[in-house]
């Protein structure tokens, strides 16, 4: 794996890259590379065996410069257009998980021609009446000054899930993991805190513009982004299919990495 800092219009962007083949851009979520871990997870390693996997850290995450002028998701999309220019990526496959899925969908409605195939995993971004996206910011305020069980429960099938305990431990975790978690919360609060939480009201009426074949993957018991959001994406994106992964919560790619990566590879190569 290469871990590199590239210059994008005078700002630093931290990018992981591995593998050969068709370019596959990966936009991360909460329980993920760059937002907790400084390494690929097993899910990414499997993808990188079959594609050129490129994973930038969002503005303010890992070693990507913070950008105080990011107020809305529109600003993030524009940031990624500049990243794409810097990487000279003209057409590519795109995977987004969670907040990264929201960014991916916003990018796809603006530039459908750039995207060969699109994968959204537990993607935020939509307003679905009666199905609010989870209150991650309040759950990130600890209980008893140090307990994050409700955050784990929101991101995983259970608060005791092995990966959940590793990525969002009680007490004080490994310092740099803690800092990355904080950076991701800080970045996502810029675009996702208001309106509460993580949606752009206008997005659903723009989804018809997406022209690429689209795979939508959802955890069986996602308590962060309710399943009805996945169904709405599947209904409003013209060439979309939705797949559910049994025994997982929100962080499908962490909880069932092999199964999820295989499902995606089958879709991308089909």
């Amino acid at each position, binding site marked *: 794996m290469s871990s590199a800092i590239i210059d994008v219009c005078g700002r630093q962007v931290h990018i992981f890259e591995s593998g050969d083949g068709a370019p596959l851009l990966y936009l991360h979520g909460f329980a993920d590379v760059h937002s907790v871990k400084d390494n690929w997870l097993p899910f990414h390693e499997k993808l990188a065996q079959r594609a050129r996997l490129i994973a930038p850290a969002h503005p303010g995450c890992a070693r990507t410069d913070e950008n105080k002028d990011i107020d809305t998701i529109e600003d993030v999309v524009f940031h990624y257009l500049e990243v794409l220019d810097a990487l000279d990526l003209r057409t590519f496959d795109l995977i987004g998980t969670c907040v990264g899925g929201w960014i991916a969908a916003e990018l796809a409605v603006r530039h459908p021609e750039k995207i060969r195939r699109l994968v959204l995993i537990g993607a935020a971004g939509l307003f679905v009446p009666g199905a609010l996206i989870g209150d991650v910011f309040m759950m990130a*305020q600890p209980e008893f000054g140090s307990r994050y069980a409700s955050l784990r429960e929101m991101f995983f099938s259970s608060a005791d899930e092995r990966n959940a305990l590793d990525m969002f431990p009680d007490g004080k975790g490994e310092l740099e993991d803690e800092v990355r978690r904080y950076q991701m919360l800080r970045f996502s609060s810029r675009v996702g805190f208001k309106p509460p939480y993580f949606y752009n009201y206008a997005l659903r009426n723009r989804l018809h513009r997406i022209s690429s074949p689209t795979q939508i993957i959802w955890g069986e018991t996602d308590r962060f982004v309710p399943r009805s959001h996945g169904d709405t994406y599947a209904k409003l994106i013209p060439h979309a299919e939705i797949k559910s992964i049994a025994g997982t919560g929100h962080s499908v790619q962490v909880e069932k990495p092999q199964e999820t990566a295989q499902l995606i590879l089958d879709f991308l190569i089909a």
Partner: protein
Amino acid sequence: MMNPVQLFCWHFMAYPYLAKDFDEKESSGWVTVPNRLWDDKRSRGLYQEYIDQLVYADQLGFDGMVLNEHHQNIYGLMPSPNLIAAALTQNTSRGKIIILGNLLPLHLNPMRVAEEYAMLDQMSNGRLIAGFAPGGGPETFNYDVPSANTREKFWEAADLIVRSWTEDGPFAHEGRYFPLRYVNLWPKPLQKPFPPVWIPGSRSPSTMTEVAKRGYCYFLSSRSHGGETHRAQQEFAAVLEKHGDRYHPFRFGILMSTYVAETDQQAREECEEGVWYFLKNCLKGHLRREGRQLTYGPGVPYIPAAAWREYLKGYTPGRKLLGDVENWDELEASQSIIVGSAETVTRRIQNLIEKAKVGNLLIQFQLGNMPDHLARKSMKLFAEQVAPALRHASLKQFSEEYPDRNFASPAVEGMH
């Protein structure tokens, strides 16, 4: 002429009618505390009782009355302190009216704060002390205010307000967050060039620096007064020096709580119920680790990541906060709530003033569900038997330590 320590009466206006099992049943006193717990019948007249206590403080000779803004909680029933301040302009004539403060990022437009403060200054005949605060964890959720740029927004709003008070309008404000084409306040405040400005902080160097740059008064929002208060004073003094300014006692204020009775024993007996109600109920969700702690945590990421890394290095998971004290001795050691006879309270506060060289004491008398007659008795004893000694000793201390300074009106001295 030198002035003695300024003694202000602070009221939080707690909700006093929670059931005995509140702590057992509810996870927080803030943001999510169910509002069905409000008892309409018993609460009738509650605001009047609290306002009358503040009016009584004015009659007893306190230097002023302190109000502040909180939302959706049982700790303080003042979502709009400006409304209470307006009532005080009609019922008091002497003491300063300190609002500490309006939470600027929660206001859609800072002009509203500029206008209401200007009105209050006019209505009170120039008695307003204008506090600006950014709000904290709970308020972020109350009004759905994204936290990442809070401080930048806060200082733009604060500067715009002061500019609107001092510069003739109309002018255009070309701001990042609050751009306005026509700023033209009618009326401006009565006090010239503008009312004293106080800013609360919790020892963050950046807040101290911004306060120093502008010549405002720094108010330490901590409730515990062990060694930290003295250190905060030294830090602030150093920051002032760095900006070509000099520390004096009236640039600095602290919040404390007290209860005075005839004897130490009687004081403890009379206030204990109110004190525990305050610590266990009012602080739950704020300065207690029990339940969900909204004030500190990564869910309200208002400081840059580098500052968070530094914070984590010194942070002990699950550390005790003020509301977690388990017994009276621990509470005494925190020096947050000073309880005793006039003699005891005088000695302890005097000790605090001597060490922290603080000229503004903002004192909470009514605690939790403390009944009206006890709060008033304590205020009266304080005014008659504690305040004179504190004034006398502090005047001597300040004159010796700051001999070349002249303070005609200490509350106003904060501004340049």
